[in-house]
């Protein structure tokens, strides 16, 4: 397998109406598989959220990470994703999330650390165009002078790699800390005492509406790497809906790491 470059691929954009949290988990699973099987061209998907959610990482303990009673009180669904990494607190207007489904050849020979930075170089460029000086903070964060902006996670499936990122556009830190259990140990080498202070959202940094930030990101990706508009195929949608109602809504999956 030869190493490929962004421009060696015919990148597709999927950006549709808001979807449920469990359908987002399922779409990531299905679309990664389709790219790996060669049935789908490499794709950038921008997520729109239909409901608030806590998305926990593949290996996180449900009870250690989430206050279930608080989540229920706030009407927040808890879902587990296929990739590792940390819990994300999602409110529809406050979050910008995207997935890149790429052939593994794109990061062949790169270390994990290099691969994470490689997949988000276009985002750092887009943020720079919005006047934000941001950089990659290993292992998997995008950060700025004001604090963390985003967290990334990758998972490898067959011939494909999924790289997905959640960015804070705005944040209700009080509600987040009510629902997520963020321990002191996790913050021990971050140099900050308060979890709320660790995140510096894009809204305060840009003064722009969320849609304008997304528009800039898509334009930057298109200019740097090329991008054609696409949709989820009907067979992909059917498979994703099956998984959303099955595996990704099941107690067995959510409690897999209790």
């Amino acid at each position: 397998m030869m190493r490929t470059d962004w421009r060696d691929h015919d990148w597709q954009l999927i950006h549709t109406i808001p979807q449920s949290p469990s359908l987002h988990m399922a779409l990531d699973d299905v679309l990664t598989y389709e790219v790996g099987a060669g049935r789908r061209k490499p794709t950038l998907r921008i997520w729109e959220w239909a409901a608030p959610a806590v998305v926990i990482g593949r290996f996180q303990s449900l009870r250690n990470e989430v206050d279930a009673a608080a989540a229920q009180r706030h009407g927040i669904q808890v879902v587990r994703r296929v990739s590792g990494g940390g819990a994300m607190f999602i409110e529809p207007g406050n979050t910008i999330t995207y997935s890149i489904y790429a052939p593994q050849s794109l990061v062949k020979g790169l270390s994990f650390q290099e691969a994470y930075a490689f997949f988000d170089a276009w985002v750092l460029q887009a943020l720079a165009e919005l006047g934000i000086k941001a950089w990659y903070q290993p292992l998997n964060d995008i950060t700025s002078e004001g604090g963390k902006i985003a967290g990334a996670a990758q998972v490898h499936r067959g011939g494909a790699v999924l790289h997905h990122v959640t960015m804070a556009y705005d944040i209700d830190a009080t509600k987040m800390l009510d629902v997520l259990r963020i321990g002191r140990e996790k913050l021990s080498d971050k140099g900050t005492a308060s979890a709320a202070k660790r995140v510096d959202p894009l809204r305060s940094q840009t003064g722009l509406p969320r849609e304008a930030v997304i528009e800039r990101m898509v334009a930057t990706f298109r200019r740097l790497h090329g991008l054609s508009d696409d949709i989820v195929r009907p067979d992909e949608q059917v498979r994703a809906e099956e998984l959303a109602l099955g595996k990704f809504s099941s107690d067995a999956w959510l409690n897999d790491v209790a």
Partner: protein
Amino acid sequence: MHGEYKMPGGKLVVIDLDVRDGRLAKVQLSGDFFLEPDSALQIINAALEGQPEQASEMALANVVRDALPPDVMMYGLSPEAIAVAVRRALHREAEA
């Protein structure tokens, strides 16, 4: 019993376990690390199950390392970090 360890330059590594008859039981590794394939989680839990509660950090790390198939990928996680989290889980209970 519960132990946490933020691996320097890595991720949070968490161990929950019981001790039965001087041996580790119901061991569960969790955290915000990256591990592939994801089935390796159960291999690690199973390897730690039944280890003596007096096992050293080095012995525990070796048990984990020896149990893992060669194709397993860890990012922000290591056998040594898992061993530290296990020792912390055992140590904290002893203090309580």
